[in-house]
């Protein structure tokens, strides 16, 4: 796991190990931050229904840390090569989550707002497809299902 005392780094963390505020603080400590005109954030949280409309009461997130961290690093490096993108941090939490609890943070610092919004959207699409993380929705009827 990572230490969040100094710089918050991208990667997989246990629930409760890191907060959005510390990620934003880290982004602001990037030596290139003066070139940024905006900081964008995305927070993925637990919804109360599945994609099929089934009532969800809680969620479990499992991750293959080594593999997921490799993929997250690749995504961040790829986005940081894009014009106007100063810094990108992606944090995915794992463990047991109640409704509305935070699951994912994506924070992007960009020179201008447009490339920042675009990078957030790309980062979300990429991590959903590429990182070794799985979610299990627990339903109100006592059943549960791993989503693929």
């Amino acid at each position, binding site marked *: 796991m990572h230490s969040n005392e100094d710089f918050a780094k991208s990667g997989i963390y246990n629930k409760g190990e890191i907060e959005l505020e510390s990620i934003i603080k880290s982004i602001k400590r990037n030596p290139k931050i003066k070139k940024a005109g905006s900081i964008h954030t995305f927070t993925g949280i637990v919804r109360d229904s599945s994609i099929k409309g089934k009532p969800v009461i809680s969620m479990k997130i499992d991750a*293959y840390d080594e593999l997921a961290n490799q993929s997250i690093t690749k995504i961040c490096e790829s986005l940081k090569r894009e014009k106007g993108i100063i810094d990108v941090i992606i944090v995915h939490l794992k463990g047991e989550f109640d409704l509305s609890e935070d699951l994912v943070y994506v924070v992007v610092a960009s020179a201008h707002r447009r490339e920042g919004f675009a990078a957030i959207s790309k980062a979300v699409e990429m*991590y959903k497809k590429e990182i070794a993380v799985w979610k299990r929705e627990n339903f109100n009827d006592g059943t549960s299902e*791993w989503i693929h």
Partner: protein
Amino acid sequence: MWILESLIIDVYQNIVEKMIVEVLYFAEFKDITGKEKEKFTLSDITLEGLLSLLFEKYELKNLIWDEKAKKIHNLVSIIINNQTVHEKDPSSIDLKDNDTIAFLLPVSGG
């Protein structure tokens, strides 16, 4: 000459018999096995041998094995030592002592 041959066979069998690999379990695999990881001692140097042991011990066959195609499901990623293996025929995938293996279903980030 036969002494040399039998020595080579002895050494080979010794290596094969002592081959220990570790399997990491995620998502459904963790729920079904009740474990995060597990070590197996193999007498077969291919992934086929490991699959036989896994299927004997746990209800994992439906998740991993494509019965029609007689190979690992295309949707299942085989990871050995944190690297993806693209071959899906387990008899063509060699394992080494101390290898770490994982079978991954399609991901679903939050």
